[in-house]
């Protein structure tokens, strides 16, 4: 089942002489349950692509369909609601809300939606993340790896159509990195969670079903390594 379709996506920063083409006419599709690693050198446009897929940046031209919804035809409010229900974003620097505890940070998208989390589902997720005994902690009382697990929890709590991660292990040591990779892989397999991860980390790339290479704003390679 096709979950994401990208058509002729371009993104240009700046104007005239100083204009930089971050994305140049990119098109591809993603099936449900796929685990895609996006690799490429710095400044190649990977992050821009991810942000546009996540609905937090707007493309200069082209379209993004998530579960057949043209997300950039939505107004700001609808797009925000779409984000909290259908997209989970994970950042390199976690970006947790410092005044909310672990449980509140994880359930934030639901809370914003005015919903209460399903208790058994939450318990299961939290134990998967290994955070059961940290629910009342504030982010600053956690280690980096734990914080990143919280942000993964937040990304997946609303069962989004698409989970996007921007260098999720870029700020972690190797032990914590392996844990995070393992976790992402586990979620992908257990829940059939569609996952797009930007990474420099070869180990992540090797866990993926498909590796996409971006250079100068274009997809130069797109190979399925397992299916």
């Amino acid at each position: 089942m096709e979950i994401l379709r990208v058509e002729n996506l371009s993104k240009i920063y700046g104007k005239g002489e100083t204009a930089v083409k971050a994305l140049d006419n990119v098109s591809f599709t993603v099936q449900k349950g796929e685990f895609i690693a996006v690799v490429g050198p710095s400044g190649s446009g990977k992050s821009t692509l991810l942000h546009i897929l996540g609905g937090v940046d707007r493309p200069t031209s082209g379209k993004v369909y998530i579960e057949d919804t043209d997300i950039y035809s939505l107004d700001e409010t609808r797009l925000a609601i779409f984000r909290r229900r259908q997209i989970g974003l994970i950042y390199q620097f976690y970006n947790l809300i410092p005044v909310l505890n672990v449980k509140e940070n994880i359930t934030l998208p639901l809370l914003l939606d005015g919903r209460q989390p399903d208790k058994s589902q939450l318990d299961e997720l939290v134990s998967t993340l290994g955070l059961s005994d940290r629910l009342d902690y504030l982010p600053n009382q956690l280690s980096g790896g734990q914080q990143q697990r919280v942000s993964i929890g937040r990304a997946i709590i609303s069962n989004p159509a698409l989970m996007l991660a921007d260098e999720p292990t870029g700020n972690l040591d190797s032990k914590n990195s392996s844990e995070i990779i393992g976790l992402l892989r586990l979620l992908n397999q257990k829940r059939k969670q569609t996952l797009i991860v930007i990474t420099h980390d070869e180990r992540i790339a090797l866990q993926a079903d498909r590796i996409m290479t971006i250079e100068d704003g274009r997809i130069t390679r797109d190979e399925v390594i397992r299916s």
Partner: protein
Amino acid sequence: MNIVNKLTWRQLMLNKKRTLVTVIGTIISVAMITAVSSLGLSFLDMLRRQVIAESGEWHVLYKNVTMDQVEAIRKDEETQTVILSRDVGYALLEGSRNPNKPYLFIREYNEAGFEKFPVHLLEGRFPAASDEMVISRAILDNGKVDLKIGDTLTLDIGRRELIGAQERTYLEQNASLARYGGEVKEHLTRESVRTFTIVGIIGRPEWEPTWAPGYTVLTFLDEDAMANGAAANASVILKNPDGRLFEHARALAKSQGISEVSFHHELLRYSGVIEDDEARGLLFNLSAIVMTIIIIGSVSLIYNAFAISVSERSKYLGMLSSVGATKKQKRNSVFFEGAVIGSVSIPVGILAGLAGIGLTFAFINPVIKDMLGISADLFLVVSPLSLLAAVAISVLTIFISTWVPARRASNISAIEAIRQTQDYKLTRKAVKTWGLTRMLFGIEGDLGLKNLKRNRTKYKATVFSLVISIVLFLVIAKFTSELKKAVVMTQAGINFDIVINIDDASKAELIAEDIGSLEHIKDFSRIDSLYLMSPVEKEKVPDFLKSRVQDASGAYAYDAYINVLDDASLKTFAEEVGADFNKLKDPSRLSGIVIDVVTYKDMEKDKYVEARVINTRVGEKLNLAYYDSESDSQVQLESLEIAALTDKVPMGVLNLDPGTLSVIISKDVYDRLVQGYDRISEHVDVSLYMTSDDPLRLQEAVEEYMINTETGFSVYNVYLNRQKQEQLLLLMSVFTYGFMILITAICIANILNTISTSIALRKREFAMLKSVGMTPKSFNRMIYFESIFYGIKALLIGLPVSFAVMYLMFNVLGGMFDYAFTVPWASVAVVIVSVFLIVGVAMLYSSAKVKKENIIDVLKQEII
């Protein structure tokens, strides 16, 4: 400049916006300190000049002194100048057309007197010998007597003696011509004869009461001729008037056997010399409170600015420390910042403060002149001492404000700074909220509240600023209304400019009609008044009055002061107190309005008291009786139904002693009431009351009328007294409200500063919230909740504190006045609305800037 200071300097230049905010905040504070001190000085200066213009420049007055005693006073080391004056007496003014002013009032001055007393020479010169005199211009204009410079007058001089009094009674200038039943009841004694040549014409002196019966003329006091033991009054100008002058003058008087010493308290007060310890204490407390509030306000603003600047610089301070800067160097860098900011802000602030006050004066001078006819202008008075004080206070303020941030800066360690530890210190307890908050206000409200709690210092600073503004606003509003009330109370209900008493009731009708049609009259009313008695049951008399209204036989009876209002005035008054005018006019059912709340001065307690004087209700009957002297008996009249009870007083009806009930009735009711009792009407006084847009000209017109029709009645112009009180009130209001506006400006700057910084520092977080799907609407909700919580918190603290301060102030001022404490609810409402408005605007303004930013741009910013 060493390297640390160089770095600080660069940092200041780099963050121009932040530096500007700090500089502006400091400028406002300095300007305010300057403004307050020069405002106070300027007012004092103006009041001093006004007093000198009205009653002359002198400090101590020794009465009835002989030349020997004068000599001793002259020799005293504190004496600068001695002014001699003597009231010689009255002489008949031949041909005076003003029936109320038939005399000349002759006063002597020595040379210094003409110089230091407020006498305005219009033509000619001042007298230099005891057979020369200057005459008041009013003799020509008002008395219509044709005198000119060079004329010679021979006058029989004597004193005013009351005719028909049991003892010999002499009258002075402040008693108007004695009349009774249309006849003059006084005459002049004959003491001496003197001949004068007119050498000049002066303006009517301000110290001559408008109702005085004699026109002022001044002649020269010849000291040599005084040697024979005659006495004069010696007014002394001192070299350096200070607090010791009272004792010194009394000692001098005692050693010289001078029996009467008095002081020019008004002038001394405005020169800062006050004898009364209580008054001085009050003044001292008041200025101490004002200064404390200013310093607290300024320190909190400047402190905030520096604290924020330091927290933003913490990263580079940490780096400095990692390359080996000592604590002292780091601390000094903050003091250096203070010095830089101070050296810019203090001069600019002082100039801005002076300019602001100058502009204010330029603006209010014409207003004061127009409204109050005050003769002295308000000048900007700047004393080097006050400027020095302003500088010192500002330096102190900046130093205090930088002290804590400097200490904090010195403690910043390298690692803390690099990790930006602010949020590392967050504890679960700090951001704990009740589950109820989330239930009631949703996640947005909960987030808003947690946001407040995360940074206690800033939260407290903002709430504190708000609280200060709230307290100041309410206290000043209350203070001003209190002051107004106090002035109204001491005026004993004088609410008119001119009153005319007509003692010949038969001519009243005609005079009232003619006077009522004169120009410059704003309100006009005619009141016929008489005294009756009102016997009442014991229960109706409040306890404090029981002994006062009980007569010899043990029965209770009030004096009833019956005021008959003309229909037009009664209609206005009835509407004001909510009574039915038509019912009041119905002679078949006698009714009247009773004033049941009275303000009076309690002599025992030396206080003004406001009290309810009778326990009764609308609809009950008021018994009336009069004492008939011929039959020596009390005659019962028809009783009066109470149509309304009120604490309001119509123009002309005075608040009397509490044993007297003031009753207002219509002419129709009056006629019916006294029908068949002819002897009552003999005791009726007819008075005409008016307010005017130009009371002096109106008085002239009234006197003109009196001269032309040759009718006799007395005219009292009380406008000047009233005007003085109003002047004081206006000046106080300008001062207090000006002060309030400044403090509020500081606090608003403070709040804007804190809130916009706190929002700017949370930019990343906002972007984050948006990226997990917070809609613009819930973002706004969060911001609204944050503002509302700020406002609620500030009000929860500010309102009780305000009430406490108001109550305290009420008790301090209440030493003189006795009435119930009231809460100014209207001001409270204004405060509540304004608080939410200010916070809301500050938050919306700051968040609007954040909202425009692209999520990604913000998130991409370097995390450190």
